[in-house]
């Protein structure tokens, strides 16, 4: 049943996607950023992918475009997952928001924004969520040094 659904999805959306693949049981759709919202609405309304699992990004600093924005969806009716990937540039890392479609997108997009700097057009609440006010930079980018701390409270002189 799950396999049939993924075949149907692949058949109906294959045209819109730049590439499709089956990776470890998950259908992966590679799309252009402009077609994100239409494709995801189609997945939700036509094929029943009602649970938005996750949005994250992958940083490929040696590649142009630099970031892969990766979405995962799950169908609670057919128990299959689909992965939607899109590529954005470092100069303009913007994709459309999914908040009108899924409420859970609010917090997940906030996290992706503060960690990678991906801007979600339409989500006006992109305050830092896991990081704090005054943190400069996007820590999960590969060029942010792991140990660069930005303390909020100045350290005291500790006698050893």
């Amino acid at each position, binding site marked *: 049943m799950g396999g049939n659904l993924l075949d149907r999805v692949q058949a109906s959306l294959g045209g819109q996607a730049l590439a499709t693949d089956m990776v470890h049981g998950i259908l992966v759709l590679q799309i252009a950023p402009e077609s994100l919202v239409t494709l995801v609405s189609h997945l939700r309304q036509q094929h029943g992918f009602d649970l938005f699992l996750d949005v994250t990004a992958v940083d490929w600093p040696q590649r142009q475009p630099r970031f892969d924005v990766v979405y995962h969806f799950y169908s609670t009716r057919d128990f299959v997952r689909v992965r939607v990937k899109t590529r954005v540039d470092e100069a303009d890392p913007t994709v459309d928001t999914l908040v009108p479609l899924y409420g859970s997108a609010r917090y997940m997009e906030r996290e992706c924004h503060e960690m990678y700097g991906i801007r979600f057009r339409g989500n006006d609440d992109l305050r830092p969520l896991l*990081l704090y006010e005054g943190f400069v930079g996007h820590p999960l980018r590969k060029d*942010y040094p792991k*140990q660069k701390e930005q303390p909020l409270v100045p*350290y*005291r002189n500790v006698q050893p």
Partner: protein
Amino acid sequence: MSTTTPVPRGEKSAAFEYLTTRKDEFVGWARKFSLFPYPFVTACCAMEFMSVSSTLYDTDRFGAALPRFTPRQSDLLMVVGTVSHKQAPILRKVYEQMCEPKWVIAFGVCATSGGFYQNYAALPGIDKIIPVDLYIPGCPPRPEMVIDGIMKLQDRIANQRHPIINQDF
């Protein structure tokens, strides 16, 4: 730390010194067996804190069972778990809101030194922002270690000076 400032003793009589020592012993005994912890709980060490507070490893035997969840009423700040940079102002504020005498326990390696989180997010040890009296290492420490630590802290409290009226007495 809080009450170990040296007190000028040059001109006092032997009787006064005897009274001060006995007073310090008595007040130290009273304070060490009536600790009111403020469990500043953040992470995994909370599981061991729960275990050490309940029946099998009871801290009630040491008088340190009743947590006061407001810094105004507590005297032992137990920082349990990792403190991130975002949490650091809150920890400092809570510490400042506590009244003297107060003691601080760094419970777990994350509170002691940052643990194995040496990155942009975790504070490398709470002694960077507040003075600490006792460090309990472990990830998380076994309840027996925590009890050992509390007993060491009690020894320390018993041997401290406790000025209760003014700086001399």
